[in-house]
Structure formats: structure tokens, C-alpha cells
């Protein structure tokens, strides 16, 4: 592969600016991947990678991705919480790269919770 130049990064910046204008005001969902020690050890980073790859490849525009620490349910990691519009947050457990993509497309994009992967609906205290 050719060298990466500052010029390449400038092009990326312009590209990002354009797609950002399209994204603006469309944030309807937030996915929080739990990244405590337990989450990371159970595979949370792979879940995060799969999620970002899918968002990028499918040009998903309404979803914000963030992380949190351990939620005290270490044996159910990797976990993620999805908040869609004004619906109560849904906590998903025992995730992997495939499950998170299904959750992204069905819940965060379409608004239909994936019940078979859900642990509970509602939120608990996070550190």
C-alpha cells in the first residue's frame, strides 16, 4: 500500500464532513458496549469492532456508539445496552459479532428489540 500522507487525511476530513452533514439531527438510537475488565475479557472489543464495521459498511446514520464500565453482571458479558428513541433501554447479554449486528439492524435502526438476546428492559445503576 502507498504511504499515508497528510493530504490523504485531508481528503478523509472532507469526506467525513459531507457524511456528517447528512447525519446531523438523525441520532435516534444509542448503543453502549460494556467495556469493563469482565467485558473486555469476554470479547467486548470484538463486539465493538463488528458493530463499527457494520455501521460503516451499511452506512447507518442514526446510531451513536459509546462504552461504559462493568454493570455488575460479569457472567453475562459481553453486554450492550440499546436506547431507541423514547423507549426504555434494553440490555443485551452474551453477545458476539453476529448478534450485535442483528441488534443494530433490527433494534437500533428499525426500533424492534431482539427479545431472544435481551436480558432485561430498563436501566440499573452504572459506575
Amino acid at each position, binding site marked *: 500500500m502507498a504511504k499515508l500522507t497528510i493530504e490523504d487525511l485531508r481528503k478523509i*476530513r472532507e469526506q467525513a464532513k459531507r457524511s*456528517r452533514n447528512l447525519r446531523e439531527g438523525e441520532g435516534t438510537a444509542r448503543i453502549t458496549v460494556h467495556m469493563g*475488565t469482565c467485558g473486555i475479557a469476554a470479547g467486548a472489543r470484538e463486539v465493538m469492532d463488528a458493530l*463499527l464495521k457494520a455501521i460503516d459498511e451499511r452506512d447507518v446514520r442514526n446510531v451513536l456508539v459509546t462504552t461504559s*464500565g462493568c454493570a455488575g453482571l460479569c457472567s453475562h458479558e459481553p453486554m450492550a445496552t440499546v436506547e431507541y428513541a423514547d423507549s426504555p433501554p434494553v440490555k443485551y447479554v452474551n453477545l458476539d459479532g453476529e448478534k450485535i449486528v442483528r441488534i443494530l439492524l433490527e433494534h437500533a435502526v428499525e426500533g424492534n428489540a431482539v427479545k431472544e438476546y435481551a436480558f432485561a428492559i430498563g436501566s440499573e445503576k452504572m459506575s
Partner: protein
Amino acid sequence: MKELALHILDVAENSVRAGASCIEIIVEEDRISDKIVIEIRDDGSGMDDDTLSRVLDPFFTTKDVRRVGMGLSLFRRAAENTGGYLSIDSRQGSGTTVKAVFGHSHIDRQPMGDMASTVTSLLLSHGEIDIFYKHIIGSDEFVFDTRDIRSVLEDTPITSPEVIRFISTMIRERKTLE
């Protein structure tokens, strides 16, 4: 943890929670001295002597959702399993440095793993934090600094998918901006 890069992600998450604005990750792999040295330095709140003395105890944690704190204990065990060690230097108000030394050729040494993914995971969830990452392999040195990226990006967020993909390529292929 399956990879050293995952330990690094875990320790760096501690730095984020300590309010760091810059995290430095320095990895040095040297086959001649047969060592891998990993240092994670932050400018966060640091710890007082009492906390510092208990931080490697797996039953000590600063959180209240559970009663164990495994991150640093696991990292130390991983280092010790390869004939190495872990040390922590911290002072309240002036940040923390975690240093782990591994035996390079030791059979129990975990693979380095995916540092690109560790750095982008950190950036995505904490886009305001600066990351300086230096990785030396023998005589080859690779340096990545979010401040260099930001100076080109102007007001475009570093967390934009296009930028993250670019950063990931930079780190994966050990390419600096020219």
C-alpha cells in the same frame, strides 16, 4: 485476557475514569533482551498512598456495582507468568504510570494482539482524550499521536467513521503521516 492489547485497553479505561486528558501507551518488543515492556502513562487524578497500596489486591475496587477489581491483578499475573513483573507509580494529582515487563519468548506470554482495535475503541468512546502510542520492535519505531491527526482534522470529530477507519489502517500497517 487473550491479548496484551486487551490488558492495555483495560488499564487505559482506568486512566479515562481517573479523568486523564492524555494517555501514553509505549510498547517495546526486544528479542535481544528477550523482553516486552509495556508502559501506560496518564495525566489523571493519580492515587493516594493508601489506594496505591491496595490497587493490586483483587478484592479492592473503586466501584460499587461489585466487590472485586481484577484488571490490574490480571495484568500483573500475566506478566509474572512470563518471568516479568508489574509496577505502578502514582501520586495524587499528577497521574499514574503502569509498567509491565514480559518475557518475550516465554511460552505463557500472550500475543500482542490488535493494538489498532484497542486504540480505536478508546477513541470512539472517549473522543476528547488524546492518545500517544509508540511501538518499538527491535530497531523499528512507530509513533501515533491523535494531536497530529486533530491538527489536520480542524473541527471534524476524530470519531467520524471515516477517520477511525483511517487511524485503524495507520496503526495496522505501522504508517506515520508524511
